[in-house]
C-alpha cells in the first residue's frame, strides 16, 4: 500500500483516500479524472473522513457514468466487452456502497442532531423502573383483592349456613312440630343470628370497600404505561428508520412466528386467533379432539 503518510497532517483521511484509490483503480479505469480529489476534505470535523469517502465514491460513480456510457466511446482504451461489463459491475457496487454510506451517515447525523436516540438511551433505566413499578402495583392490588375475598367468603358462608339451619327450624314451627321450649330456643337463636348478620354484613362491606380501593393501581399504572408506550413508539420509529435505510429489501427477514405470543391485544381483522372459549371448543371439536 502507499507509503507516504504525512505524520503531521493530523488527519488520516489521506490514508482512507489512499485505500479507496487503490481499490477503485483496480479495474482498468481510464484517465486520471477517474480518481478525483475529494471535494470536502477539511481537517476539522469528526465526520470529514466519512464525508470524504462518500464523496469520493459518489463522484467516482458519476464520473464513470458520465464519461463512459454503455457503449465504449471512440478513443476509449478499454480492451473489449468483458472489461466494459466488469466496469459496469464495479460502478454498480460503488454506487450502492456510496448510497448506503450516505444514508448511514445522514441517519447517524440526524440522530445525533436532534438527540432523540440519545434521549431514548437515557430513558431506558427509567423505563425499567417504571415497568417494575407496574408489576409491583398490579401484584399488590391482586393480593389485596384476594386477601379481601379470603376474609369475606367465610363470613358469607357462615351467614348462609346459619340461615339454612334457622329456615329448617322455622319450617318445622309453621308445621306445628315445635314445642314451646323449642320455640323459645328458636327465638333466641334467631335473635342472635340477626345480630351476626348485621356484623357480618358490615365486615363484608369493609372488604368490598377494600376491593374497590385496590383498583387505584389502574390510575397510577395507566399513567406510567402511557409514558412507556410513548417512549417505545419514539424508539421504534427511530430504529425502524435506521433499519429501513440501511437494509436492502432482499435482506429483510420474514416475520417470525412463535407459539408464545401472550394475550391477543387486538384480534380485529385476524383469523389466526380465537376470541372466546366457544371458538376454542369448536376448533378442538372440528379437529376431533
Amino acid at each position, binding site marked *: 500500500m502507499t507509503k507516504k503518510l504525512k505524520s503531521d497532517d493530523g488527519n488520516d483521511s489521506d490514508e482512507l483516500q489512499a485505500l479507496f484509490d487503490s481499490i477503485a483503480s483496480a479495474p482498468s479505469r481510464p484517465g486520471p479524472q477517474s480518481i478525483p480529489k475529494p471535494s470536502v476534505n477539511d481537517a476539522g470535523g469528526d465526520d470529514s473522513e466519512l464525508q470524504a469517502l462518500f464523496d469520493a465514491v459518489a463522484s467516482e460513480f458519476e464520473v464513470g457514468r458520465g464519461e463512459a456510457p454503455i457503449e465504449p466511446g471512440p478513443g476509449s482504451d478499454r480492451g473489449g466487452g468483458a472489461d466494459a461489463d466488469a466496469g459496469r459491475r464495479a460502478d454498480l457496487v460503488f454506487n450502492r456502497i456510496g448510497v448506503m454510506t450516505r444514508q448511514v451517515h445522514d441517519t447517524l447525523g440526524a440522530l445525533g442532531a436532534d438527540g432523540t436516540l440519545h434521549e431514548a438511551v437515557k430513558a431506558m433505566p427509567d423505563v425499567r423502573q417504571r415497568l417494575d413499578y407496574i408489576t409491583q402495583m398490579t401484584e399488590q392490588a*391482586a393480593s389485596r383483592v*384476594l386477601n379481601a375475598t379470603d376474609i369475606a367468603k367465610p363470613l358469607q358462608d357462615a351467614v348462609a349456613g346459619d340461615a339454612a339451619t334457622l329456615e329448617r327450624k322455622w319450617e318445622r314451627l309453621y308445621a306445628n312440630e315445635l314445642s314451646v321450649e323449642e320455640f323459645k330456643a328458636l327465638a333466641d337463636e334467631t335473635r342472635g343470628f340477626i345480630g351476626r348478620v348485621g356484623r357480618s354484613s358490615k365486615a363484608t362491606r369493609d372488604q368490598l370497600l377494600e376491593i374497590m380501593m385496590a383498583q387505584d393501581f389502574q390510575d397510577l399504572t395507566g399513567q406510567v404505561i402511557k409514558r412507556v408506550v410513548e417512549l417505545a413508539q419514539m424508539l421504534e420509529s427511530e430504529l425502524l428508520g435506521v433499519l429501513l435505510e440501511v437494509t436492502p429489501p432482499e435482506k429483510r427477514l420474514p416475520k417470525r412466528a412463535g407459539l408464545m405470543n401472550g394475550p391477543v391485544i387486538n384480534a380485529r381483522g385476524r383469523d389466526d386467533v380465537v376470541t372466546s372459549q366457544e371458538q*376454542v371448543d369448536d376448533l378442538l371439536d372440528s*379437529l376431533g379432539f
Partner: protein
Amino acid sequence: MSDPKMKFLVVDDFSTMRRIVRNLLKELGFSNVDEAEDGVVALQKLEAGDFDFVVTDWNMPNMDGLTLLQRIRQSPSHKHLPVLMITAEAKKENIIAAAQAGASGYIVKPFTAATLSEKLDKIFEKMGKK
C-alpha cells in the same frame, strides 16, 4: 370419577393466577392443591408426589407448559395424567399444537369459574369412560 380428594398441581409463573385457580378449585370442592411456578418445578413435584391432575399455563420461564405437557406424555409413570391448559395464548396454531401434544383441555384467559367447572367435568367424564 371426580373424587374430592384428587390432588391437583397448578403450574403458573404468576402467583396471583395460581391463587385464583386454587380458589376456584376449592370452590368446586377440590382442596388438595399444590403449586409450581414453572415446568421444571412441576416435573420435580410430579416425581415426588402422587398427583391426579395438572392445570398449567403455557408461557413460563425455564420450561413452558407445552414442553411440560410433552414431558408428561413421554413419561411412563405420568403419561395418563390429565393436563388442562389455562393460557393467554389464543392463536389457533397454539390450540392445535396443545391438542396434538395430548392436552386434555384448553382454556383461554381470561376465563370464568363456570368454564373451569365445565372443562373439568368434561375431562372427568372422559376419564370415567376409559
